[in-house]
């Protein structure tokens, strides 16, 4: 490998990325918008868990007074009983209460309705000792940020390397490079390194910028987080090399990249936790590098884990990178 040739391709690719303003701004603007969108949409002062409609509030029997004082239940005065019952039928209200007539309505299929019924019957009745702790709540946005940044990294890695190489092949850039002493290894290394550092830089910038305004919870080490970010990005870039190895049709490449990226986006725990999902989904998610990157990043950020605790994710990311890169590089064709 000639370092001079590697650096030449690396510089040219960096220039291309930086000058392609639409791609650059999309890489920065999209994650910022998502983070802000979710920060505002889910950051609300209300911590109410249930909605109870109360009919004819003035005439409530004293037996339900204790229930009406419970925290985290939103009590809504309703004017018309019939309309309110319909809302219970449709799960828009978890319960409807009219103790003046001695009745309450819940939907049999509503879990919230069931819980409220238990509270209504015996609120706060326990013989166990109460222990209290204090601490800041983990907001959805704190949990979401590794997922959103991970998703952005995935799209940037797959399309930024895979799609670009296919485009180069289609329009003849690769053919022209093949006619020079540049080797495939030098070319691919430059593509990987160029995209890797650009993604790490852009992601760090987006993280720092949104952190400044939203303020994330970060209980672990930034260095560990950086390592996970670099390894996760590297593994997904290597994955894109497999897609880009031989294709010369942008439409096919686009389809395959979407086929790879969408399941990752849905099943890697970007938007919601996989903890409650079926075992098979959880097992399936482990084949995606994005899952390991996000899980490791969340463990570091939210649980304050060190590298030792996320070693399994790191090892899997390293193994995936090596496997993807070997397949991608070995099957690579200039044309």
């Amino acid at each position, binding site marked *: 490998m000639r370092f001079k040739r590697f650096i*030449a391709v690396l510089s040219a690719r960096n*220039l291309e990325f930086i000058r*392609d303003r639409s791609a650059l701004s999309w890489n920065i603007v999209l994650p910022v918008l998502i983070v802000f969108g979710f920060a505002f949409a889910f950051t609300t002062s209300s911590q109410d868990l249930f909605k109870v409609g109360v009919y004819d509030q003035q005439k409530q029997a004293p037996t339900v007074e204790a229930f009406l004082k419970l925290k985290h239940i939103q009590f809504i005065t309703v004017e018309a009983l019939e309309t309110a019952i319909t809302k219970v039928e449709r799960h828009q209200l978890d319960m409807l209460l009219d103790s003046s007539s001695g009745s309450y309505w819940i939907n049999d299929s509503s879990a919230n309705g069931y819980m409220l019924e238990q509270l209504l019957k015996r609120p706060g009745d326990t013989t166990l000792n109460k222990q209290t702790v204090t601490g800041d709540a983990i907001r959805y946005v704190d949990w979401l940020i590794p997922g959103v940044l991970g998703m952005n990294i995935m799209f940037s890695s797959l399309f930024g390397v895979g799609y670009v190489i296919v485009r*180069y092949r289609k329009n*003849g850039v690769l*053919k022209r490079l093949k*006619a*020079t*002493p*540049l080797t495939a290894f030098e070319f691919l290394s430059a593509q990987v390194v160029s995209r890797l550092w650009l993604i790490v830089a852009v992601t760090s910038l987006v993280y720092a910028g949104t952190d400044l305004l939203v303020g994330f919870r970060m209980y672990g080490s930034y260095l560990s987080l950086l390592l996970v970010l670099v390894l996760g990005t590297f593994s997904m870039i290597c994955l894109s090399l497999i897609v880009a190895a031989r294709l010369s049709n942008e439409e096919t490449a686009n389809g395959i990249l979407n086929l790879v990226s969408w399941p990752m986006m849905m099943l890697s725990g970007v938007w919601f936790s996989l903890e409650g999902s079926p075992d098979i989904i959880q097992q399936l998610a482990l084949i995606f590098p994005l899952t390991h990157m996000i899980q490791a990043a969340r463990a570091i950020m939210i649980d304050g884990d060190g590298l030792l605790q996320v070693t399994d994710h790191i090892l899997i990311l390293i193994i995936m990178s090596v496997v993807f890169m070997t397949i991608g590089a070995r099957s690579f064709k200039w044309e």
Partner: protein
Amino acid sequence: MSCILQVEKLVKHFGTVEAVNGVSFTIERGTCFGLLGPNGAGKTTTVEMMEGILPSTSGSIQYKGAPADETFRDEAGIMFQETSLQEFIQVGETLELFSRFYSHTRPLDELIERCALGEYLDRDVRKLSGGQRQRLLLAIALVNDPEIVFLDEPTTGLDPQARRNFWQLVNDIKQEQKTLVLTTHYMEEAYELCDEIAIMDHGRIIAQGSPRALLKKHFDNSVILLPANEVPETLDQDPRLKLHRMNGQVEILSEDVNATIDLLMAQRIPLTHLQIRSRTLEDLFLELTGRGLRS
């Protein structure tokens, strides 16, 4: 003169299509070798096998007496028929990029001046005109000061002035004793630039030699042209004239121009618009294959 490139029984099949069928020739160092033929004759396929871009189905290509290896890539300059350059990169940066691929390079300033690219160094390669783009691609092909330069239909799509300017550049390269391999379907271009030509059709070489030698070998006559309306049709049957009408003109093939003109004067044919031209490579191709070079 020594042989720099030797092609032996070269064959290329694409599935059931036989694009190149046992082509053999040698190229002498310091000469311009032209591959001529209509579209689909197998020129580009042959050249791309010589360039190492396409693998051959069978046959051999020897560069300086040995199979082409890394040295060949380092010493060859290539200008493809169609090529794209990396987007968002300027002309100067593109030259810089390619110059870093080679162990030995030509000073960029000299190359920029020779190919008249000085005004466009800061221009995005996508914003170049056809002529400017071809000059840049030629400059890229020359960036490693190559021993052998491949030019695949370099002037296709250029206007006549840009084409002539390009020929001048190629002639300058020839002056440096570089070996050139040129494919073209412009006969004038081949005649102007090539020392040796091989005419291809259906994947085979059907004639080879210097342009003048080929014309001399196949033709011992000239063409006399007259407006068709000035030549009575009764002359069409005259056994002393090889005459045929085409596009409002009469072409008379003549081994002895003086004798033919005397004959025409005797018939009182007006000679005001008479033209005489030598036989061209286009004529040769028509004669050999029965179809035009650009068909």
